[in-house]
């Protein structure tokens, strides 16, 4: 059964189709308050799903630490690529 067609910019991120993604991204609110609101909502949804539960496990914080390691790796990449065992860097 088909739902009423909702405009692209009002759909949630997980409901956006892959082809519509650039379209959706361009229609976001790029003001200061809009961006901080988006970060706040993202943070709140992560905390409420994984950390603010009655019996939270190590998964919540492990995901944060793993993400931190990955972002550090990306940040460090220019420097780390000289560690590879290759003849030409």
């Amino acid at each position, binding site marked *: 059964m088909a739902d009423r067609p909702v405009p692209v910019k009002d759909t949630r991120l997980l409901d956006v189709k892959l082809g519509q993604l650039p379209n959706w991204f361009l229609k976001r609110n790029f003001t200061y308050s809009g961006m901080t609101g988006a970060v706040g909502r993202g943070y709140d949804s992560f*905390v409420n799903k994984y*950390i*603010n*539960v*009655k*019996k*939270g496990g190590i998964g*919540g*914080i492990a995901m*944060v*630490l793993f993400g*931190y*390691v990955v*972002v*550090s*790796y*990306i*940040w*460090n990449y*220019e*420097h*780390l690529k*000289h*560690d590879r065992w290759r003849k030409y*860097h």
Partner: protein
Amino acid sequence: MNLTFFDQFMSPQILGIQLVVMSLLMPSIIFPTQNNRWLTNRFSTLQSWAIHTFTKQLMLPTNKKSRQWSIILTSLMAMLLTTNLLGLLPYTFTPTTQLSMNMGLAIPMWLSTVLMGLRNQPTMSLGHMLPEGTPTPLTPTLIVIETISLFIRPLALGVRLTANLTAGHLLIQLTSTATIALLPTMPTLSLLTMTILLLLTALELAVAMIQAYVFVLLLNLYLQENT
């Protein structure tokens, strides 16, 4: 480009932003915000319990006047503990290996304890320069020595933290390089080196926690002297 072993302590940058910025913001993300519920989630309970126990144990011997310092000492401990432990994860940057940051933490704190002492009870503070029960001929020498030891305190605080963490990170890097380099030629020796590496990592975990504690404990001691 030849990599030296000290390159891990340089903060790399992307888009002009240094990695140290993210490393300094990470502790605030790790600690969940307190909500007003009676029964909170496990993380909040754990965090509250840890902070309460630590503050109680730290501030027990102090007098009423210096209890104002409890929030800053506890938050300092939490920050140092988190930054030190996070620095043990792979590819991360430890801001407390930089002497600039540790001196920036040590000097203002020490100076404020000294100034507080000089302002509120100048006689007592100056009296600390001469410990009780010293023989009279030794008095001038001892005053000079005590003044020097007073002024060396911030230096010692900062450098102690920096040196311990830097040395630990360097040792881990050296041992791991040795382990990997030995692996093709002498696997047994490589295994031995790996055991050393594991023990070293355990030591580093302990040192990370202990150093944070020592920093805060010494500040508390200086505070008690001066209040």
